[in-house]
Every structure is written in C-alpha cells, then in structure tokens.
C-alpha cells in the first residue's frame, strides 16, 4: 500500500474536506490534529489513520511523520484565537511548523510539504493598482499574519521541497452569521475563494511536480472579484436583509484582488464561479425554508 499523506489540522473544516478529496483520489491519509477535535467521521474509515497530537510536542510530531510520503500542513491557530496570545500563536504556527519540517527531514528529505499560508500576510494593499502578486512585500496587520510570514521564511530556509499557498478568505456555501463588523471597507476590493477550490489547490500542490519550491496566491479568480459592499449585499439579498444592516471597517483590511495566473496554470483549482457559490447558498436557504 502507498505511504500516507499527512494532513495536519485534518479534523478541521477544511482539513476534513482535504482528507475526503485525497481518499477519493485513492490516497491513504494520516490525520493529525488536537485530541479534543471531532474525529467521528474519520476514525475507523478505510485508508484513514488518525493520530491525536500537538505541534508543540516534539514526540507527537515525530510520530506523525513516520512513513509518510507528503505533508499538507493546515494546523494553525486562526483569528480570533491567534490574537489572544502572541507567544502561543508563534509556538503553534511558527515553531510547530519548523518542528514538523525538521522531523520530516530526518525520515524523508524529498517528501512534498504544502504549507497553508494566507494572503493576509500582505497587509493593507489598497494603494496598489494591480492585483497583488506573490512579490508584494509582506506586512502583517495582526499576530496571525505575522506568524505566517515568520513560518514561511523559516520553512524556505529549512526545507527544500516546499510549496506555500497564500490562501484568500474562504467562502463556505452554508448559512453563516455575519461578523458584527465586516473585516474590510465597503469599497475595498475583495476576492474570496470557494472552499472546494481551496481543497483542490491543496491536494494538487502535494502531487504536481511543478509546485515544488513555489509560492502561490490562492483566490477565486475573475468571477470572484468584487467589492466588500457588493459581496455582502449579494449575501444579504439572498437572506432578505437590507444592506444597511451591514457594518464595514472604516480602515482597510487585508483583502484585495490577487494575481492567480500561475497558481491556476499549475494547480487548476478555480472550478467554482462566484455565481455557482451564490446558487449553492440559495439552495441551502431553500432547503432550510422547506424544513
């Protein structure tokens, strides 16, 4: 049997979709996540090996990398939890990432390592006229982005077969409570990406030879390019809520439009248009209204 792909954070919302996608492609998978996560739809499933652990513990990280052939590293402290303690966020997102890469180097120096980073590492790019490229200087607006920048840099120094995916805001086709204040200005450019397309990109990055050593922007593509207010209005219209109920930041957030020409060429992941996403949300609403 082929050696498994390690998915850290594999019991999280995106992680579970990645695991499902890899299984549907015939790969075996090792899921590594915190003990308190919900493993109910993973444990006991054919081709899935569950390992409960913690990136801050060297022994569990060493156990996680045994006999694996690739890593998709999703485990991280995300906002708002990441903003409560810089020390803990760096321990998980930076030191944990490097610990994983170092442990992997000891057992398999060639294994592809896909690192889930974020477009939030670019910070405020509202003064830039063109879509943001991967060469844009990184400038963190929060602890989370700061930790991702540090992890990217250290990872490139310590491991050769690495691919970094700077992922935009992920849109999940379900009914969600909006934040009290949307994390962007009303007229700010935004380009989110469908969760399924992120999953496709992550799974492709671990398998495509051309992804090795690359940094990619992962965003939805042309159909997803809009402004903050237009994005929220589309969602609110589906729910029958007036747009004046929405509150936007008065200073720029990290959102923008992104240059994804190379990522799309190599990873072929932009399969869900923005309209298709809205149709999926509408279908969810219709289902709820009929219940």
């Amino acid at each position, binding site marked *: 049997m082929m050696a498994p792909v390690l998915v850290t954070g594999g019991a999280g*919302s*995106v992680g579970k979709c990645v695991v499902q996608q890899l299984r549907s492609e015939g790969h075996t998978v090792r899921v590594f996540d915190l003990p308190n996560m919900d493993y109910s739809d993973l444990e006991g499933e054919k081709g899935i090996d569950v390992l409960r652990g913690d990136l801050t513990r060297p022994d569990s990280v060493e156990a996680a990398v045994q006999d694996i052939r690739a890593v998709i590293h999703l485990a991280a402290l*995300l*906002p708002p939890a990441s903003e409560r303690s810089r020390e803990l966020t760096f321990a998980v997102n930076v030191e944990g990432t490097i610990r994983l890469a170092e442990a992997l180097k000891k057992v398999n120096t060639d294994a592809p390592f896909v690192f*889930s980073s*974020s*477009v*939030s590492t670019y910070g405020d790019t509202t003064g830039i006229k063109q879509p943001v490229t991967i060469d844009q200087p990184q400038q963190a607006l929060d602890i989370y982005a700061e930790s991702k920048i540090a992890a990217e840099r250290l990872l490139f120094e310590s491991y050769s077969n690495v691919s970094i995916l700077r*992922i*935009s*805001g*992920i*849109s*999940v086709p*379900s*009914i*969600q*409570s*909006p*934040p009290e204040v949307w*994390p962007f200005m009303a007229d700010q450019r935004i380009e989110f990406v469908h*969760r399924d397309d992120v999953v496709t990109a992550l799974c492709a990055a671990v398998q495509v030879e051309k992804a090795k050593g690359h940094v990619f922007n992962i965003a939805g593509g042309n159909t997803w390019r809009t402004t903050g207010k237009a994005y929220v209005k589309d969602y609110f219209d589906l*729910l*029958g*809520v007036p747009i004046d*109920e929405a509150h936007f930041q008065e200073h720029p957030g990290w959102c923008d439009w992104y240059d994804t020409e190379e990522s799309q060429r190599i990873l072929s992941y932009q399969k869900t248009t923005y309209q298709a996403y809205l149709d999926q949300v509408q279908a969810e*609403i219709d289902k*709820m*209204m009929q*219940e």
Partner: protein
Amino acid sequence: MIPKGIENADAIIEACRLTLAGLDSAEPEWKEVLQSVISAIEELKTKFFLKTNLAIPITNACRKDAVDLQSLAEKQDLSGFPEALARFRGNIEKLFKQANMEGITIT
C-alpha cells in the same frame, strides 16, 4: 420596517405572557416552560437570524402555537394544553437549532 421574524418573536412573547396570566392555578412546570421561552426569545431577538427570511416559516409556526396556548388558557380549556405545549416546545427547539448559524471562515 420591522423584519417579520422580529415581529413574530414579539408576538410569541406577548402570547406567552397572556398565557401565563391565564394559568393561575395550573401546573408549575407549564409556567416554567413559558417563562424560559420568554427569556430565550428575548435573547434571540438580538441575533441576525431573526432579521432574515429564513426565520419567517419557523417563527410563524411558533407564533401560531403560542396563540393556540393563549386561547386555551383564556378559555380555561386545559385538557388540550399539554399537547399544545409539547408542539410549541418542539417548534421552539427547531427555531433555536436553525438560529445557531455558523461563523465565517477567514484565513
């Protein structure tokens, strides 16, 4: 204009209060249920869900149940009250389940 879900929530609270007023010597458990529904709906009124179209069908159902309870209490026809209260509780639980919307994922 007040969203229909909020209007329904106010009507549910009002019907529960009037029902309580008509249940002077009734089962204390019934009163406890109605009191807890009033508190829970007051809290729910601050949620985004009640402003959406999604809230209309289920709050319509809860409002109808609450008015039925009020009518039974006013007529002092308490033989059908437990069944009506069970139906009301079922729909209220469904309302809270639907209102428990997930948060947005931001990387």
